[in-house]
């Protein structure tokens, strides 16, 4: 039996009066890739952003219910501490343009004022870039700024930056929607590697991607979690008609 690392209990999220995530209950097992899919406006991105408490940065938002990481409610912790444990990769690659590749990877430590020896720093940078399948491509230009990298490489840099922090969970918000097909597939391959060490929750609007990369899939519709099952089962034998309609392309 796989252990649960992340668990939402009756979780709600609001934009002011707008109820955008409705009573979601979900248990996410360790070292899995979980895809979260659904049509535009279904609340999947909002739900994702609640997991690392980025949702509350927008004015007028509020949440309800429990979000447990290793059985601790993250809404009882300080957001900064939460974000050390739960990392995020965004839709558009966003390496810090004023920092070199090296400094980007180590940014979570360096900008936090953490003093680490050069030896340890080098180790972290190399290991993170290795895990993100970027090391060989940039090892000779670590001290250049990251803006000359391609979109796919930049996104892998952002992944390296996030995993350098050794998070328990890595959240990815449509990580390949701004990338070309080749970069997209390299990142999908990467995700399979990453799940050995981390748990990944990926929001995607691309069904085929969900089918390709994930172990379990969650289908959101109009703010509710409609169905959550092992990916293979959901795509071959969906239990809810709405899920079925979505998968067969009735709406998107």
């Amino acid at each position, binding site marked *: 039996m796989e252990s649960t690392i992340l668990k939402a209990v009756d979780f709600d999220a609001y934009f002011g009066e707008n109820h955008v995530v409705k009573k979601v209950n979900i248990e996410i097992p360790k070292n899995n890739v979980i895809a979260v899919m659904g049509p535009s406006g279904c609340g999947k991105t909002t739900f994702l952003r609640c997991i*690392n408490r*980025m949702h509350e*940065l927008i004015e007028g938002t509020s949440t309800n219910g429990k979000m447990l990481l290793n059985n601790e409610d993250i809404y009882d912790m300080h957001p*900064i*501490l*939460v*974000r*050390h444990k739960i*990392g*995020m990769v*965004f839709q*558009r690659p*966003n*390496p*810090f*343009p*004023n920092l070199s590749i090296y400094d980007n990877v180590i*940014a*979570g430590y360096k*900008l*936090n*004022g953490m003093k680490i020896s050069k030896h340890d720093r080098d180790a972290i940078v190399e290991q993170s870039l290795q895990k993100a399948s970027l090391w060989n491509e940039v090892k000779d230009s670590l001290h250049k700024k990251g*803006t000359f990298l391609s979109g796919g490489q930049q996104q892998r840099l*952002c992944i390296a*930056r*996030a995993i350098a*922090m050794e998070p328990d969970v890595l959240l990815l918000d449509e990580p390949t929607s701004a990338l070309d097909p080749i970069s997209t597939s390299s990142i999908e391959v990467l995700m399979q590697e990453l799940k050995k060490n981390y748990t990944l929750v990926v929001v995607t609007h691309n069904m085929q991607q969900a089918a390709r990369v994930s172990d379990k899939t969650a289908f959101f519709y109009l703010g509710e979690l409609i169905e959550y099952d092992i990916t293979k089962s959901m795509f071959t034998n969906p239990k809810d008609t709405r899920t079925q309609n979505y998968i067969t392309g009735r709406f998107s």
Partner: protein
Amino acid sequence: MKPNIKYRLGKSRFFKGLIIALSVLCTVPLFIILIYIFKEGFSKINWHFLVNMPKPVGEAGGGIANALVGSLLIVFYASLIAIPLGIMCGIYLSENRNTRLANWTRLSVDVLQGTPSIVMGIVVYFWVVKPLHTFSALSGSVALAIMMLPIVVRSTEETLKLLPDTLKEAGLALGLPYHKVILRIILPCGISGILSGVILAVARIAGETAPLLFTAFGNLYFSTNILKPMESLPLLIFNYATSAYDDWHNLAWGAALILLIWVLLLNIITKIITKKWRVQF
């Protein structure tokens, strides 16, 4: 129809010529002034000019050392006050688009920007000179700092507003505290715009006279004491130019050239910084 079209086209061509002529004419007084100042001032500047004090009336020679040092000090202290305050205010305004404080602060900055410089001098006279019972470089710096604020605040706000939100999000998602995200990611990315705003502000106040008339007041002697009256280049130019003595006129020409070069240099530096240090996205 033909003659009508010819007439209309002719009118259009004439108009274009008129526009070009008037536009070019605008630049003529500028060049006349620049050339004249260079001509008059160049011969007056030499090493003695830069390091000596002004001589009493009647004696030839003398220099503007007190004004040079005074200007540098007053501008330096003013920048010390205005730059951190202005940048922080600019950060607040770019981070808070619509709070009540933000809107009122923007209004205040607009008001400060439109205030005549002589009125600045009056107010700071009552705020600093009277309580201290003396004219002082400090009061001059305060007056100039208040004049710098709108420029620094504005350029900081505008620069930071242009940065994509995703930059801030990336920093926050890494678990960085808010102040680190702003100070170590956002500010460095906007450095070219902020810096050019700062240098423009310095260029602007370096040449200001009116606010110093009743604050720093001027000083015939060399002084670096912030609590005593201090000479500055624009003040010296004003006093000596309007005096009756040729010797002092000469000093004023030299000082005017130095001031002019100083202001021109700062403007050129601003342009270079804006181009070279711009952070690409």
